[in-house]
């Protein structure tokens, strides 16, 4: 039985060989790589066939017609390792990753590690380290559970970014009772992990190399506003389940609205109409009365303008082209 199960989401052939090479080169050899293939891409499947012959630790499961969440659920179930690590086939990892993360998890006896990553641009300009933040940032510190290593944990429960590069105790991940299959996507799954975990380690050493410079929302499934709304609604349900909704509802609403707006602004031409309609449907008659008016003021105004102004005027007013589309640009987070 291998010690570590590495679950690799495979969308297509691009960079897949580099991802698998970085696994084969791992200093820590005792792992199985479960490649979950989401497309009918023959090039990807051929490459996986070759790699699995080359190295018996590499396996693949094809799920071309299945929702990726169902596929992930199955992969987690099939994983035999004591630990589970998630990778996107577009990216790759440093050679010491599995070795170091395993050591950290064992010595801290945590349920999972939330670790840092380096963000590479595709033409190999060395990218930025996406820092997971500290107490000295805008975020206030609220300790949720006992024995945590980092005080800003709750911020990440609200906005966990992505599951890639996170290292879990298998037993912990498998015991989470998800409401339904849809909860296996990144935001609800990680929210659940954050709120349930007794101990979380934060590792600031960047082991994971992101390569897609066009992904601002690193959550890959967020292509349509409808998907975002569904994700964030599932996240709200998780917070309610753990009795944390009232404390964080403002932040959760703001994040939902920002994510939707981001997707709208990034829409391809053919998707814009659909996204706009979804957005309008969800927010035009939204009941803001239960929320802290002060905190939601900015984003509420942005939406009001979105629905009232002509789109071109809206863009000009907020100058979205030059602004980085991160939450910090809009609102200051305070949780109490």
């Amino acid at each position: 039985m291998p010690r570590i199960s590495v679950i690799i989401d495979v969308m297509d052939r691009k960079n897949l060989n580099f991802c698998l090479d970085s696994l084969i080169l791992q200093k820590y050899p005792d792992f199985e790589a479960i490649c979950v293939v989401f497309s009918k891409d023959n090039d990807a499947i051929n490459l996986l066939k070759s790699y699995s012959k080359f190295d018996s630790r590499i396996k693949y499961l094809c799920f071309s017609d299945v929702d990726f969440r169902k596929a992930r659920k199955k992969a987690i179930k099939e994983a035999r390792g004591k630990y589970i690590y998630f990778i996107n086939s577009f990216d790759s990892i440093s050679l010491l990753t599995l070795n170091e993360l395993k050591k950290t998890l064992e010595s801290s006896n945590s349920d999972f590690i939330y670790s840092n990553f380096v963000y590479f641009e595709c033409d190999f300009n060395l990218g930025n380290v996406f820092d997971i933040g500290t107490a000295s940032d805008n975020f206030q510190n609220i300790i949720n559970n006992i024995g945590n290593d980092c005080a800003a944990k709750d911020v990440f429960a609200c906005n966990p970014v992505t599951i890639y590069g996170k290292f879990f105790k298998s037993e912990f991940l498998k015991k989470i009772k998800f409401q339904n299959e849809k909860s296996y996507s990144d935001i609800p799954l990680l929210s659940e992990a954050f709120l349930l975990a007794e101990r979380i380690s934060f590792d600031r050493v960047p082991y994971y190399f992101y390569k897609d410079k066009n992904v601002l929302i690193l959550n890959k499934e967020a292509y349509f506003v409808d998907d975002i709304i569904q994700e964030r609604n599932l996240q709200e349900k998780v917070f309610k389940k753990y009795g944390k909704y009232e404390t964080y509802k403002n932040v959760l609403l703001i994040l939902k609205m920002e994510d939707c707006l981001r997707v709208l602004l990034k829409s391809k031409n053919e998707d814009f109409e659909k996204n706009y309609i979804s957005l309008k449907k969800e927010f035009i008659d939204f009941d803001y009365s239960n929320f802290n008016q002060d905190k939601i003021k900015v984003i509420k105004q942005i939406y009001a303008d979105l629905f009232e102004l002509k789109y071109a005027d809206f863009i000009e007013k907020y100058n979205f082209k030059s602004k980085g589309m991160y939450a910090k640009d809009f609102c200051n987070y305070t949780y109490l």
Partner: protein
Amino acid sequence: MPKISVIIPIYNGEKYLRKCLNSVVFQTYKDLEIICVDDGSNDNSLSILNEYKKNDKRFKIISKNNEGLSSARNVGIENSLGDYISFIDCDDWVSLALYDDFCKVLDKINKDIDIYNFNASKILSSDNNLALSCFLNVLEVRNHNSLYDIHTFADFSNPFCGNFAAYNKIYRSDFIKNNNIAFPYGLIFEDQLFYIKTFLRAKSIIVNNNLYYMYNVRTQDNIMNNLGEKSFDIFKIIDLMERDIKLSNLYENLKYAFLQYKYVSYSYLLFVTAHELQEKFYLESQKRIIEASLEKFDEDIMKKLRGYDVYIDIKTLDYISFFDKYKSKVIYDR
């Protein structure tokens, strides 16, 4: 789609040979000719090769007496029938998409390419407790905006740094054969000469900074730590390089980098030369650097070169002083 000749010289490589061969056999691009040149191994290498040949018709096995890496590679070139030539060392392995990605680039460019230059890495073998990985320098090339840009040697910013290996390139066969380029028989540093000969003549070079070649630093590889008298080969190699560089039209582009390459090589190799020959090695190095510096070199440019003080010292210090000063310093960072 072109046929690619993969040339693998083997000398007592049984330990990593299967992984190496597997990485060629399982390439997604299938139109390969796999030429294994057994340079007189006395371990199980040959029987492993025969086993592979039984199961895969693409293998061609050539057995010869032990005459060294240059000779083995040259025999491989002579016996190759492919449109392109690729070299792999028997201790290493390659990404399974190497040749497929190469052919896709060729297809897109739709022209003959003389040299396809990709990236290789150095990894300490897994027996070792230290897992360091140092990647070769990102290939620094001017005017490089896309993978499909066609370059010449003049575009390379660091022509004498870290890109000497034969195994991180794919060469067009006619380019090699029509120019009569071969590895120098019986000399070490053969990769370096081959690199200069090929790059000086290449009219079209493609640079792909992605990592396709996994180089295993052999733990028993103390060859580069104690060369005995073989270190003196560097003088012959540099003479051969110099002749070619001066005959090309790139001398002015390369002269500073070439001078730096000389003094850095000499000062590094001094310390891996057999002890009793070190003074002789130093005197030869000193003589050559003094001669080379008689040519007009702009001092301002010289001062900016890495290791400038080595250059000054090698011209002015006697052997004992130089040895004492540099014996514990890292001059040549690999």
